[in-house]
């Protein structure tokens, strides 16, 4: 393994993933989901058995026609079995249609319930847990695993059900003709069983690696293509072409390994086919010679066995799809069946708060032994606007997240607590972060996430307040313009304005803003600062300030360093105090050239 490959591998692991259900938990969860649809399940199964059974009349009818020919029956005698063949075909067609649609209704309904439960639980997972696992894990589950399970339900499940039924019933039909035909056919089973076991043993880990390689290739492509400008600026073209080539070649190599495995699998199945077919023909030879079967019966038996090739092959191949789907299912159930996350105290119970925030003796460590906050005391009075200032790594963002209830403090207490809800179900504390996300769909729908019952006038008022109404109305379809992934592209500043409009609509008494203006560039930053000021009007607000103008206009400035609060007071007080804040301000406002830091 070359060094880059080892590196790639190391990055693919090294994560604490979200829970995955055991197979027992998965089964239990599925039973709960299927239980309300028991009748549907029973009906679907019965109809499919009927449909397959009817289809099996075909071969004896053909055999009967062979017998008629062999015994030189009158030509007219052929008409009845031929008409029966047509009737069988029609009956089989009708019942298969019905059975398949019943089975897919069952599968799809259960699938819909599963994905709803999954999304519901996923959105309520503690953010700390999601971040630890990497947001990619959750995204992969909601896209990859959901579609894999859906594919299985849509194609593999009905096909597998049909194949298994066909195999079982055909073997039964062979026995009905003569049990010795069944015995002959079963000679193929040991080979098939051994082949299947061998295949699954090798295929499952191989395909898991193949998926990882495909994911790594996709990630590398997004990396290199998305960063093409940077690649060119730094002359990294050869390096990145090399990276893509390596990832792509690795994916190709694994795919070819998979292909070789599948082809060896088919070779072994060919051997099984030959063994069974030859045995059935030999059995037919001796049974006809001894007079215990007609030529027609021997023909029917051979045709039965020949018609088994397709369902056996597809059932064995689908086993592999089923394995993959089961792995995906376990990952979905792992999240969907997780206990709903509610922190203490119990939610739903409206908590009495006075719109003030009290932080007492709070310390926090993301990893044991590496504290980032030490013994922080801070009180935000109702309606007060406090700016948090300090170098990166001083603990500003952590403190903001603790107050917003994203994390629980390791020591000390924060009031109001995380789950505090107002009487109307809204959150007591809202957090606006530097996260730039627009929800795909009409702009109005995005805003209504913050307040589902909002009227168009409410939306316009909120947009107007944050200076966004002008551009929003100028969009191709106004508020109904589809934005986000695949829709109309908004600038970073517009996205931030949307975030503020959502804050206005959610209307929490307490707002925490972190780096809300960071990505907009200086000119955009000023527009956003004004919008922010209006959005937090009348709220208790904590602002993580990156531009000092935000600090200058706040009621109070709190300066942090090394996880502690080192200064607190109004802008003017702190400037006069000549401490760290005063030095910062002078450097920033350009009244002194290069400050000592």
């Amino acid at each position, binding site marked *: 393994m070359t060094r880059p490959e080892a590196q790639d591998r190391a*990055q693919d692991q090294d994560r604490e993933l979200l829970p995955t259900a055991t197979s027992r938990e998965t089964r239990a969860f599925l039973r709960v989901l299927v239980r309300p649809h028991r009748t549907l399940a029973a009906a679907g199964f019965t109809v499919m058995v009927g449909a397959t059974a009817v289809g099996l009349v075909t071969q004896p009818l053909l055999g009967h026609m062979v017998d008629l020919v062999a015994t030189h029956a009158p030509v007219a005698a052929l008409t009845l079995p031929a008409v029966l063949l047509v009737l069988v075909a029609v009956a089989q067609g009708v019942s298969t249609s019905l059975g398949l649609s019943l089975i897919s209704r069952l599968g799809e309904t259960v699938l819909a319930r599963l994905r709803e439960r999954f999304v519901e639980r996923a*959105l309520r997972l503690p953010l700390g847990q999601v971040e630890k696992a990497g947001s990619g894990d959750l995204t992969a589950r909601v896209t990859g695993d959901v579609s894999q399970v859906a594919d299985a339900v849509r194609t593999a499940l009905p096909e597998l059900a049909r194949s298994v039924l066909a195999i079982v019933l055909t073997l039964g039909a062979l026995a009905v003709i003569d049990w010795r035909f069944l015995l002959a056919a079963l000679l193929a089973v040991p080979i098939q069983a051994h082949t299947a076991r061998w295949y699954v043993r090798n295929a499952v880990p191989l395909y898991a690696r193949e998926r990882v390689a495909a994911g790594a290739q996709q990630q*590398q492509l997004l990396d*290199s293509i998305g960063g093409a400008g940077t690649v060119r600026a730094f*002359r990294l*073209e050869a390096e990145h072409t090399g990276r893509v080539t390596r990832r792509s070649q690795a994916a190709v190599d694994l795919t070819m390994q998979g292909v070789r495995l599948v082809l060896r699998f088919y070779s072994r199945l060919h051997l099984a086919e030959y063994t069974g077919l030859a045995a059935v023909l030999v059995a037919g030879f001796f049974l006809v010679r001894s007079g215990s079967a007609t*030529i027609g019966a021997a023909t029917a038996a051979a045709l039965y066995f020949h018609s088994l090739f397709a369902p056996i092959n597809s059932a064995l191949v689908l086993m592999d799809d089923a394995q993959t789907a089961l792995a995906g299912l376990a990952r979905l159930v792992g999240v969907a069946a997780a206990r709903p996350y509610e922190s203490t105290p119990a939610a739903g119970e409206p908590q009495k708060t006075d719109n003030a925030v009290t932080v007492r003796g709070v310390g926090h460590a993301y990893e044991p032994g590496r504290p980032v906050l030490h013994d922080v005391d801070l009180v935000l009075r109702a309606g007060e606007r406090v700016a948090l*200032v300090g170098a990166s790594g001083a603990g500003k963002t952590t403190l903001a997240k603790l107050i917003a209830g994203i994390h629980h403090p390791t020591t000390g207490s924060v009031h109001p607590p995380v789950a505090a809800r107002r009487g109307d179900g809204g959150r007591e504390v809202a957090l606006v972060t530097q996260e730039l996300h627009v929800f795909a769909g009409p702009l109005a729908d995005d805003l209504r996430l913050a307040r589902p019952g909002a009227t168009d006038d409410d939306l316009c008022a909120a947009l107007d307040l944050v200076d966004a109404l002008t551009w929003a109305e100028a969009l191709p379809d106004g508020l109904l313009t589809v934005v986000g992934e695949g829709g109309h592209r908004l600038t970073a500043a517009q996205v931030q304005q949307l975030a503020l409009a959502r804050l206005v609509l959610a209307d929490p008494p307490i707002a925490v803003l972190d780096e809300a203006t960071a990505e907009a*560039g200086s000119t955009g930053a000023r527009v956003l600062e004004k919008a922010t000021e209006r959005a937090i009007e009348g709220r208790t607000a904590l602002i993580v300030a990156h531009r000092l103008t935000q600090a200058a206009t706040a009621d109070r400035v709190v300066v942090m360093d090394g996880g502690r609060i080192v200064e607190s007071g109004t802008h003017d007080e702190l400037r006069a105090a000549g401490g760290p804040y005063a030095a910062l301000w002078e450097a920033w406002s350009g009244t002194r050239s290069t400050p000592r830091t």
Partner: protein
Amino acid sequence: MGASDPSGRDVLRGAIRGQRRGVAVGSLLGAGHQAGEASVPVLIGVVIDQAVGKGDLSALLLWLAVLAVVYVGLSFSFRFGARAGERAAEQAGHKLRVALVRRVLDAGGGAENGRLPGALATIATEDAKRVGVVNMAVMSGVAALTGLLVGAVVLLRISVPLGLIVLLGTPVLLWLGHLLSKPLEHRSEAEQERASHASGVAADLVAGLRVLKGIGAEAAAVDRYRRTSRDSLVATLRAARAEALQSGMVLALTGGFIAVVALVGGRLAIAGDITLGELVSAVGLALFLLGPLEVFSWVNADLAQGRASAARIAGVLAAPRDVAPGGAPPPAPVRGAVRLRGVSHGGLREIDLDVRPGEVLGVAATDPADAAALLRCLGRQADPDAGAVELDGVPLRELDPADVRMAILVADHDADLFEGTLRDNITAALDTPGRTAPDAPERTALGDLERIDPAGTGRTAVPGREEDAMRAAGVEEIARALARGADTAVTERGRSLSGGQRQRVALARALAADRPVLVVHDPTTAVDAVTEARIAAGIREIRRGRTTILVTTSPSLLAMADRVVLLDQGRIVDTASHADLVQRHTAYRTAVLA
């Protein structure tokens, strides 16, 4: 493939021609496999006729031996034929993928215009794969045709009328099935699309998880998803019913057809025109022939998809470059004198500017668009509409864009980080001069893979330079806060770092690259004021004696520049120190201080 601007047809042809051996071997063996599969029902008929019917044991053994030989042949030809075809498909896809990435990363740029990174990545994966699969489709088509021909010959030899019924009946049957299912397919496709919408909504909500949690909108989001999911369930069920109906109809039609073949064949057999075994063979062949004919329909679909994909790939490969390669040799060594003469580009109007070697120049633009236009010209991502940018007296237009970037590094404020450790990112450009030869720009778009340097391993870092850069950009403290220091992996294109951390790592990379001319754009917008002041001093120190242009409105950075140029309304209004400009211009104060 001589032309550098291939059409979709060229791409498709090239993909097949590049794999012609694999496709030929695959077709040949695939044909053998199909012929073998066609023989199995025939041989069943022969065994019934010659051995079972006549009670002849030696005939039984003989024909079972023949059947065994056929099985060995069909099994091996399938195994090695399919392997050759799959390998051809995968290799062709891989080559296209690499060619696409090479074109996108080409120093001349232009391939990304009008295409989102996600869309380009999809072209490099899905479309490349679909074009590759055309190899497999060609192979399967040839094989199916062989199977069909073998079946036809056998059938016509058994009986001309029966053969004609089967040969004409199977296509009619498939056509009928196709006709009946077409309206259903149409509807089902539209409904499947609506169904996939549900998974898109779910992914989108999960991607915005932090935003949802921030405003406590989880419940609203769950409600919305449930509605989408229910809508999509209704659509999916309709589609599933349509599909079930289609399967049922195909079954009924096939069964009816077999009845007709059996009836006609039986009558011929009773009349003595064909033997009993031939009747059995004919029924078996009628069933078998449905297989190759179905292959044709998906081969057609694959070819159509392959053509569409090839056109998309060709669109990227043939995308016009933003700047044309120039042939002049780059100045060596680079002194670092940058001169703009009458440059007009975007909002810029006849800019004249002399940057002395070793100078630290600040550029404050009142309109961010002007700053962006200036940056594009300096990095030769675009050539000015009028006027010229010169490096040591040589117009950039006459240089190769790759050579320009060895001398002038334009570091954008939203520069991307790549997968690897913090240190890997910072040292990425340390070893580029000399180690990796610049790619020849006239190389064909579908060039050989052998030219790629597969290593990218051992670094020849100048000791100390990366540490200096990390110190200057304030990365040392980031590294200190991380569990594995500078060897911590950066994931999701730097998303594992905060915006400010990302910017500082990107700045350290730019400083470590140590180009004769460095142009930095707003390197500290997401960095706090304390650190920004420290970084300003750090940049000044590490760039001592080398030309540095700071395009920014940050007062901390502008304060440490030797001179600051004020760019207002596309023109240079004044050039002076930061303090003087603060005194003299309201526009400057608004842009910088506010």
